[in-house]
């Protein structure tokens, strides 16, 4: 089985927002819609201070609250474990937006439907197409995409080596792992 996941090493993130820009271009999004949002904060105490930037996007949860509340079945989990929205089925009730603990779903004012990260990085990972996803766009190589079910994948090795964890504990069995 394939179960896609990602690692984001925020210790290397410089907060340039290249991933968001690439995502908007890759997915043809308007400037006011983004699948990646950022949280940031100052860290440490003077004089040893730092600045932490954390890119946040759909975590492709295994226990996905957005999927369990969606009344139409528009939100679903596909065979690779990727959480998707069938935009032909979505009525735009925004229930999933209220249920997602990570606040990463966006309402597209043009179609009225709800959208979010589609894990398009899988396309180039599978060699299916030329993409410039967040993974390829990251200038400092913070992101590793891969198959969580493959014990030898670069992703699994990096998760183990760097002790990466879901961003907010195991609330929803998130499949994006963070190094902070």
């Amino acid at each position, binding site marked *: 089985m394939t179960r896609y996941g990602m690692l984001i090493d925020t210790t290397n993130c410089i907060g340039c927002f290249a991933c968001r820009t690439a995502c908007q271009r890759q997915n043809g999004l308007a400037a006011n819609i983004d699948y990646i949002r950022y949280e940031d904060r100052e860290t440490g105490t003077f004089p040893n201070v730092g600045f932490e930037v954390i890119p946040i996007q759909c975590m492709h949860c295994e226990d996905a609250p957005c999927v*369990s*509340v969606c009344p139409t*079945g528009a939100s679903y989990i596909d065979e690779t474990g990727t959480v998707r929205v069938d935009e032909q089925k*979505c*009525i735009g009730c925004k*229930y999933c937006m*209220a249920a997602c603990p990570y606040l990463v779903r966006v309402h597209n004012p043009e179609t*009225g*439907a709800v959208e979010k990260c589609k894990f398009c990085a899988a396309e180039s990972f599978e060699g299916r197409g030329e993409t410039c996803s967040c993974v390829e766009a990251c200038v400092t190589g913070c992101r590793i995409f891969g198959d969580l079910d493959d014990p030898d994948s670069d992703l699994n090795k990096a998760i183990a080596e760097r002790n990466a964890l879901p961003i907010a504990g195991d609330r929803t069995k998130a499949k994006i792992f963070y190094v902070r």
Partner: protein
Amino acid sequence: MTYEPIWGSIIAWYLFLAGLGAGAFATSAFLSWRHPEAVTMRKIGHLIAPIAVGIGLVLLMVDAEAGFANPQRFFLLLGNFGSVMSWGVVFLSVFMVVALAALVLDFLKRPVPGWLENAGAVLALCVAVYTGALLGVCQTFPLWNNALLPILFLVSALSTGAASVLATSIIRHGEEFNRVGVLKKFHFCLPIIELLLVMSLLFITQSNSEAGWASVMALVSGKYALAFWLGLVFVGLVGPTILEVWLLFFSAKEFEESRLAHWLSFLSDAGVMVGGFLLRYLIVVAALPLPVAVPLF
């Protein structure tokens, strides 16, 4: 990060009207049990129920923009019985059928059978509880994610529903209004229970997380404080309670049955309805999310 509420006043109107319509039908059912002679009031309840719920449903569809533009997608709404919203659609549609059936029977001057009245009352309770459970299952928002909310919305639904029936009857059927003492006494208790529930909700929510604390503070001393204290607590709950205590227990019977007292009662019922809307609105917009990576507050 700044947080914008996901739902706004349209959804608040929907939750309010669905509750009010359900409460109006439940009031009719109560009247047919305890005050069978109050025929006009019962009919008023039967009339308000489908109209209020119907308007609410239209608002819901307008807010669901992608469905409004492609109405065939609404047929998918029964697609996931793990979703509270799918259950709500079932309750609302069956309730609408029963409420419309009762209305048609009233128009044809045929009696509404007791089983229909009771089935409608049970469905009304389901609809009212569903409006609270809809928000209640969203784990992200401590102000919603608790078991008090469905009960609070149920009590508010019964209270606003009864208020709508009582207020409408005052306009042209004062004599009937004078004779429904048991209903009035029940109705009088509801804002008091509601006040207790609102206070319990706030006490518990403020203690369970930073986000809960911030949501409660936004209500009691932040940007929603005026609407909360003046609108919900005073106009919606305490004001009507004071007026009704006076009218029901401390005024002479002749005064209680006078037109002036009727209009004071009307005022109190209008207050209850204003409070019912504000309750939904404030709960919808004041809820703040649990933090993800960085503490928000």
